[in-house]
């Protein structure tokens, strides 16, 4: 047996030769061999009993997996909008120079690959990169030189020398230079709390009563969609099915969002307590934390905390003496796909499939993970649950606004003096937030990430809450110098790359939106293009299959609405009857070369 045969067999065996564990299998193979080769695909298919093309289907979906070989060290430089504003282009040049290769390439010795990657959840410390699992923040051109020189000594990113971040970032299991950037602690998530009090209170009453408490607190999902948590749990509890699941959505992929990173670093116990309460409430014995691949650097810490909880009987059988309540949590690591934050795509990914969203109905509460009733909740939502059960529903509703009780973690970045995480009561005015973060001269603010809205100064009196400016947490500030059409185009580039490709409007429509924006940016836009952008955007929103396409035109539509003048000044009517994007000189070039003379009609 060759090495690859033996290793792949071993990896599959460790995963119980289970088709549903495909993500773990292909991740492990990728890590071991720097690729999931054609041969490996055949072997995996044989071991788990599926078709080879199904393995290829999964591998080809995720950005961190590849059929072609990659270096032992993979440098992924984050090219999010915020990183661009922080000067990532110079960093990119430095990496190219030091490594002697372009992006998307591997050094000739096969040891180091260089790639771009979308938002890695480090916007408050941009520019940043992930090198294998190691996150490096605040990159400078000098730092790039040091990093490359250092790596070339050992080709082991875990040996990279760097300062340590604060809090658990400095824990030996994390050993990361990331810092929490926690600027403001509120009353719910980052206040002092009595750990396990919420769980004990929950176990003292019936599951239905727990759900009622969450309903009375009027807790709504913190992941973006804002669905009432209690009602979701009620549906899941009521659904027919012996096995049920609680899934925690730790995919945090919305560009500009990094608040769950801080929870996972500093409040993992609160999160796991919340998952346990949720498990009790809906009648689940298993929970899965879906951790985005970019946050794999936190995995060992999270595993240790889970083990501690098992040791203390906070997980396992008859938890805290409650007869018959058994619950445990596993971690599923992703592999670079924004769409896996969409709850049904997240379920697909946990099942070892491509991250395609599923057809609804059935909804996850009826048929979710492995066809079992499943509740999917955001990291922050589950932390709120812990506090609500500890302090009571009435306490929770004390903070926040009328329709939006509680606090919200906001990840603020971009052109502001104090980027970081702010825990603020719902109902805060944009204007006041901008003052807090040191960004009073902001030209525009993105609320809720690119799938949210880009607002201008006229809207700074509006409030952040479910009934006005809803957000999963991302706030990106744009100073007076920024070109908002260019910003919109960059966000469209993100959606183009991250569309799962399942449905037509999102797969193709986003490409078209980007093309029209590029045309306008190149100074070739015509007045009709604005109308086309509007109509196209509306079609994509109305007809797309999941929340991604239903929101992806927002960067275009909200800038068209709020920054219309910028667009209008960029487009002009053409008078020569030619299509502005058609370059007659370029089109004639080949012919002229053959004829060895220049056109006398089209001279310019």
């Amino acid at each position, binding site marked *: 047996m060759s090495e690859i045969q033996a290793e792949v067999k071993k990896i599959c065996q460790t995963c119980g030769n289970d088709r549903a564990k495909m993500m773990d299998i292909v991740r492990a193979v990728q890590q071991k061999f720097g690729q999931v080769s054609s041969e490996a695909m055949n072997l995996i298919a044989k071991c788990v009993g599926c078709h080879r093309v199904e393995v290829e289907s999964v591998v080809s979906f995720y950005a961190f997996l590849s059929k072609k070989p990659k270096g032992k060290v993979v440098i992924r430089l984050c090219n999010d909008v915020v990183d661009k504003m922080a000067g990532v282009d110079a960093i990119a040049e430095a990496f190219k120079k030091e490594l002697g290769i372009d992006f998307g390439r591997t050094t000739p010795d096969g040891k180091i690959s260089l790639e771009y990657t979308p938002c890695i959840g480090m916007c408050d410390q941009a520019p940043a990169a992930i090198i294998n699992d190691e996150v490096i923040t605040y990159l400078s051109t000098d730092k790039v030189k040091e990093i490359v020189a250092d790596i070339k000594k050992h080709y082991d990113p875990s040996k990279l020398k760097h300062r340590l971040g604060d809090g658990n970032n400095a824990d030996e299991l994390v050993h990361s230079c990331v810092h929490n950037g926690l600027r403001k602690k509120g009353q719910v998530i980052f206040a002092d709390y009595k750990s396990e009090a919420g769980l004990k209170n929950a176990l003292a009453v019936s599951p239905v009563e727990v759900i009622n408490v969450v309903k009375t607190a009027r807790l709504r999902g913190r992941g973006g969609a804002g669905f009432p948590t209690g009602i979701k749990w009620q549906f899941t509890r009521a659904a027919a099915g012996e096995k049920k699941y609680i899934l925690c959505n730790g995919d945090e992929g919305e560009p500009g969002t990094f608040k769950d990173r801080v929870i996972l670093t500093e409040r993992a116990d609160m999160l796991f307590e919340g998952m346990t309460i949720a498990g009790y409430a809906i009648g689940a014995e298993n929970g899965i934390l879906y951790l985005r691949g970019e946050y794999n650097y936190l995995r060992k810490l999270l595993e240790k905390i889970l083990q501690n909880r098992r040791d203390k009987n906070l997980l396992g059988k008859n938890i805290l003496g409650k007869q018959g309540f058994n619950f445990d949590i596993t971690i599923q690591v992703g592999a670079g796909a924004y769409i896996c934050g969409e709850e049904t795509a997240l379920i697909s990914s946990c099942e070892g499939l491509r991250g395609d969203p599923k057809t609804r109905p059935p909804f996850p509460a009826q048929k979710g993970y492995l066809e079992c009733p499943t509740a999917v909740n955001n990291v922050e939502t589950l932390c709120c649950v812990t506090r609500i059960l500890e302090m009571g529903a009435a306490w929770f509703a004390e903070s926040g606004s009328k329709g939006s009780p509680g606090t919200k973690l906001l990840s603020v970045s971009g052109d502001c003096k104090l980027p970081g995480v702010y825990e603020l009561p719902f109902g805060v005015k944009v204007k006041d937030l901008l003052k807090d973060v040191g960004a009073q001269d902001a030209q525009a603010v993105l609320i809720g990430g690119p799938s949210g809205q880009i607002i201008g100064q006229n809207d700074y009196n509006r409030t952040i809450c479910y009934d006005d400016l809803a957000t999963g947490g991302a706030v990106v500030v744009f100073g007076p110098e920024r070109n908002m059409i260019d910003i919109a185009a960059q966000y469209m580039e993100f959606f183009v790359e991250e569309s799962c*490709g399942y449905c037509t409007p999102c797969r193709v429509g986003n490409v078209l939106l980007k093309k029209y924006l590029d045309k306008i940016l190149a100074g070739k836009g015509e007045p009709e293009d604005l109308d086309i952008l509007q109509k196209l955007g509306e079609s994509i929103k109305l007809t797309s299959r999941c929340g991604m396409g239903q929101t992806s035109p927002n960067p275009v539509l909200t800038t068209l609405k709020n920054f219309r003048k910028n667009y209008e000044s960029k487009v002009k009517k053409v008078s020569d009857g030619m299509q502005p994007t058609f370059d007659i000189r370029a089109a004639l070039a080949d012919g002229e070369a053959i004829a060895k003379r220049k056109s006398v009609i089209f001279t310019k």
Partner: protein
Amino acid sequence: MSDQITFTIDGVSIKGKPGQTILQAADEAGIYIPRLCYHPELAPHGSCRVCTVLVNGKPQAACTQPISEGMTVENDTPELKEHRCNIIDMLFIEGNHFCMFCEKSGNCELQAVAYRLGILAPKFSYLFPKKDVDATHPDIFLDLNRCILCGRCVEASKNVDGKGAFEFVGRSIEKKIAVNAEANLKDTNLAVTDKAADVCPVGTINKKRTAFAVPIGKRLYDKKPIGSEIEERKK
């Protein structure tokens, strides 16, 4: 539970059976809702989005949305027609469709729906992507230039033929159909008699030596527009 569900499409009262989707109930009632990826013998895929209708004002794909008592469905409206035309345009420009010399012309559902909706040429500029052609199989050839990613072949091969000869790979605009082999269709166990070889709505999966057995002009949609067969059911 009652064994009949009453609802309306564009104001017309329709009776359907529990468990039916809007599209199935509409088909039975002789109301045509434009669609592409749907195939009556296969599980609905819901990917093309051409059958998007408004259900109580909310957009839904008619092929996957179950009917419910009293729902109001809007189908034939100028707004929806415009959205559908945009989608059809997208399907044309993301591939390379040269209808004038395509074997499928006249039998092609994409072409037929485009004509029915009055599209003569797409209004967006073409992407002109580079796509593969695979003619290695003795009886079947694949031309991915024309694929609309409807998933019929995947579903039919997996769940009707029990073979899994096709699957999707890649994502975003790079998503495409792949075959269950290292490279070529000839190395799969696909047979010309398989359901998967029979269901492609466009000219991607073609049976060799059959292309012009029926001449252009005498083909399925040459005489009557697509959907007529459904509308003829209306009494």
